[in-house]
C-alpha cells in the first residue's frame, strides 16, 4: 500500500524529519488560501500515485495568486496517467544547493533491510542505479539489532555527503529506518533530500509504501488507505472481494487458483497468440459464491471477449467451483462472453458432472482450454 506524498510527509514530520511547510487543497480557493498562509513562491503538486508527475505537468512552481490560480485550475481535475487528480499539496518552495537521496527497503536477495544514500538525488534513482551503481551507497542492516548510529554515519560519509550536513543526513536516515521498521514499510524514500544554502536538510518529497501483509498492526496507516482510494475501479472491486487481481491490456479474461498457476495461464494465452485481460487468483479453498464473484468481475470488464477458468484443486474442490460457475451463469438469459472451463485435482469429476455444459465449454487440459479461449476471443474481435 502506497501512502500519498502528503500522508508520507506527515508521517515523516511526526517522527522529526524536517519537511517543507505544506497544506492539502481540493479546490482553487483552497490552493489560494494555502499559498497565502505559506507565502509565495509555492509548489502545487498533484497527489496521485504515479511516477513522473513533474514531467506530466502535475507539479507547478508559482510566484503569485494569478499563477497559483492557473496552476490549480490546470492540475485539479486533470487526468494524470489515467488517474483523476482531486487533491494537490501546496508547499513552500525550498531553495536548495544540493539534492540527496536516502532510502530504506528490503533486499530480498540478502533477506535483510538495506539503507541507501546517494548524492545524486532529485532524479530517477532507478536510472542512477542502472547507469552508475557505485553512486548509491548501500548499508545492510541486521533486523534484530536495527540500524546502529554508526551505520547511518558510515553510509553518509561513504556516499560523499558534505561534512557540514553529514550528521543531519545520518540522523534523517536513521529516523527513516526506524519509521520503516516500526511502520512496517516495504519502501521508504526521500528523493530529493534537499540541502539549503545554510546547511539545513529538508525532505522535499516523501515515499512510504507499507507491507500489505502488516496492515493489520498498522491501523493508523490502514486508515490512510481508505483516504487515498482512487485508481482502477475493477482493482478496487477486487480489493473488496479479496481477490489478487491485476488488470492488463488484453481481451482474454483469466480466473484460476494459485498465483503460479494463474500466471502460467496468462503466459499460455500469450503463447497461443492471445492477449490476457487480467490476472485473477481466487485463492485456495474458494466456495461457490467466491467463484461466482470472480466470474462477475471479469464479465464486467468491457475489454474481455472470452474467459478461461483454470482450477487445479488441492484444497479447492471442483464441485464447489462448478456450482459457482453455474450460479453466475444461470442468471443470464444469454451468456455475455464465452467461458472455457478446465477442472483438475480434487473432485474434478464431481465438478464436471455438476457443471452445466450448455453454458460453458469444458476442456480436459490446460493447453486445450487456453487455446479454445483464445479462439473464442479472436472470433469476437473478428
Amino acid at each position, binding site marked *: 500500500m502506497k501512502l500519498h506524498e502528503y500522508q508520507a510527509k506527515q508521517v515523516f514530520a511526526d517522527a522529526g524529519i524536517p519537511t517543507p511547510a505544506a497544506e492539502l487543497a481540493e479546490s482553487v480557493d483552497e490552493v489560494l488560501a494555502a499559498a497565502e498562509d505559506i507565502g509565495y513562491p509555492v509548489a502545487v503538486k498533484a497527489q496521485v500515485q504515479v511516477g513522473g508527475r513533474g514531467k506530466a505537468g502535475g507539479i507547478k512552481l508559482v510566484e503569485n495568486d494569478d499563477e497559483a490560480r492557473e496552476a490549480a485550475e490546470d492540475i485539479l481535475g486533470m487526468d494524470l496517467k489515467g488517474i483523476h487528480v482531486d487533491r494537490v499539496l501546496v508547499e513552500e518552495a525550498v531553495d536548495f544547493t544540493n539534492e540527496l537521496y536516502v532510502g530504506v527497503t528490503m533486499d530480498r*536477495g540478502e533477506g535483510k533491510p538495506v539503507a541507501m544514500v546517494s548524492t545524486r538525488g532529485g532524479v530517477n534513482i*532507478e536510472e542512477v542505479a542502472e547507469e552508475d551503481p557505485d553512486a548509491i551507497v548501500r548499508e545492510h542492516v541486521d533486523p534484530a539489532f536495527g540500524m546502529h548510529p554508526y551505520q547511518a554515519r558510515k553510509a553518509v560519509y561513504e556516499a560523499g555527503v558534505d561534512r557540514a550536513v553529514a550528521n543531519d543526513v545520518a540522523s534523517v536516515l536513521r529516523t527513516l529506518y526506524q519509521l520503516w521498521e516500526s511502520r512496517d514499510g516495504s519502501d521508504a524514500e526521500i528523493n530529493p533530500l534537499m540541502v539549503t544554502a545554510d546547511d539545513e536538510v529538508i525532505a522535499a518529497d516523501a515515499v512510504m509504501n507499507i507491507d500489505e501483509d502488516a496492515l493489520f498492526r498498522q491501523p493508523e496507516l490502514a486508515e490512510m488507505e481508505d483516504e487515498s482510494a482512487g485508481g482502477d475501479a475493477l482493482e478496487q472491486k477486487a480489493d473488496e472481494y479479496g481477490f489478487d487481481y491485476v488488470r492488463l491490456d488484453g481481451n482474454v479474461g483469466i480466473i484460476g487458483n494459485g498465483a503460479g498457476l494463474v500466471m*502460467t495461464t496468462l503466459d499460455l494465452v500469450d503463447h497461443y497468440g492471445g492477449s490476457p485481460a487480467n490476472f485473477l487468483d481466487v485463492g485456495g479453498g474458494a466456495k461457490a459464491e467466491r467463484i461466482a464473484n470472480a466470474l462477475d468481475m471479469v464479465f464486467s470488464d468491457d475489454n474481455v471477449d472470452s474467459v478461461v477458468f483454470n482450477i487445479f484443486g488441492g484444497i479447492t474442490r471442483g464441485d464447489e467451483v462448478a456450482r459457482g460457475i453455474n450460479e453466475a451463469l444461470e442468471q443470464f438469459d444469454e451468456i455475455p462472453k464465452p467461458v472455457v472451463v478446465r477442472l483438475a485435482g480434487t473432485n474434478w469429476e464431481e465438478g464436471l458432472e455438476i457443471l452445466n455444459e450448455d453454458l460453458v465449454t469444458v476442456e480436459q487440459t490446460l493447453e486445450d482450454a487456453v487455446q479454445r479461449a483464445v479462439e473464442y476471443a479472436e472470433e469476437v474481435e473478428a
Partner: protein
Amino acid sequence: MSVLVDDDTRVIVQGITGGEGKFHAEQMIEYGTNVVAGAVPGKGGQEVDGVPVYDTVEGAAREEDADASVIFVPPAFAGDAVFEALDAPIDLAVAITEGIPTQDMAKVNKRLGEVDTRLIGPNCPGIITPGEAKLGILPGNIFSSGNVGLVSRSGTLTYQVVDNLTDRGLGQTTAIGIGGDPIIGTDFVDALELFEADEDTEAVAMCGEIGGEDEEQAAKYIAEHMDTPVAGFIAGRTAPPGKRMGHAGAIVSGSGTGTAESKINALNDAGVPVGDTPEEVADHIEDLL
C-alpha cells in the same frame, strides 16, 4: 530414498486445533504421515484425532521425540510460531501460512543463520515424499513414487506439473514447495543441493516465477555443482513490471530485475531446458532420464 522427510519423520502440527490445522492434520495422517503431536498455547492436554496436544513446541518435541513441525498459524502469530519451532529445536519446520509480514520474516531469516533447523516456506504448500509422508496441504493423490525431484515456488502450478509427470509414469522422490514470499527459508539452491545429494533422484523439475534472483542463482549452482539433470519452468512471462502477481514475491521491479526473460536465459545458459508449457517440462524430464 527421499529428501528431508520420510515415513520415520515424527511430525508436530502447530495450530492443530484451528480449522485449517485440524483439517490438514487429518489429511496428513490419512496419507500415512507420522503426526505425533500438536502444539497450541492453552490447549495442552487435549487430543485432536488421537494426537496429543502440548502448550509449547518445545514440550511437544521433547515428549514425543519429534523432528519436524508444520505450521498452520494465522499470519499475525506465525512469525512467533516459526521462532518457537526454530528454538524448540527441531530439524525441519514447514510454514504453510500466507501473509506473514516481511519484517517478521527478516528476523526469522536472521535467526535461521544461528540454528541448525531448516525452514521450508512460508506461504508454501509444503513437502511430500510420495507414499511416505506429506507435511503441508499438497493433494497426496496426484503424486506417485519415482525418481524425479521437484522444487517449486508455487502451489497449484506444482500440482499441474506433477500431474503432467505422473500422467506419463514419471514418479517423484520428493516434491518441495519452497513458497512464494520474498523471504523464504529454503531456496532453490538449497533444494537442488538436497536433490543432487540424493541417490534416487535422477532428474529435477524446477518451477520458478518472476521476482527476485533465486532462479538466476539456481542456474549458477546447477552449472557449477550439479550432475543430476534439471528441467525448468518460469511463470510470469507476461507479467507487467511493478505489479504483484498474487505471491508477495512475484513482482518484477521497476528497474527490471526479476523478469522471466532473465531467469529463462540464465537457466538455458546453465544447460537447463525450460518448457513453454507445463506439459513441455514433463517432455524435457522424460528426455533427461
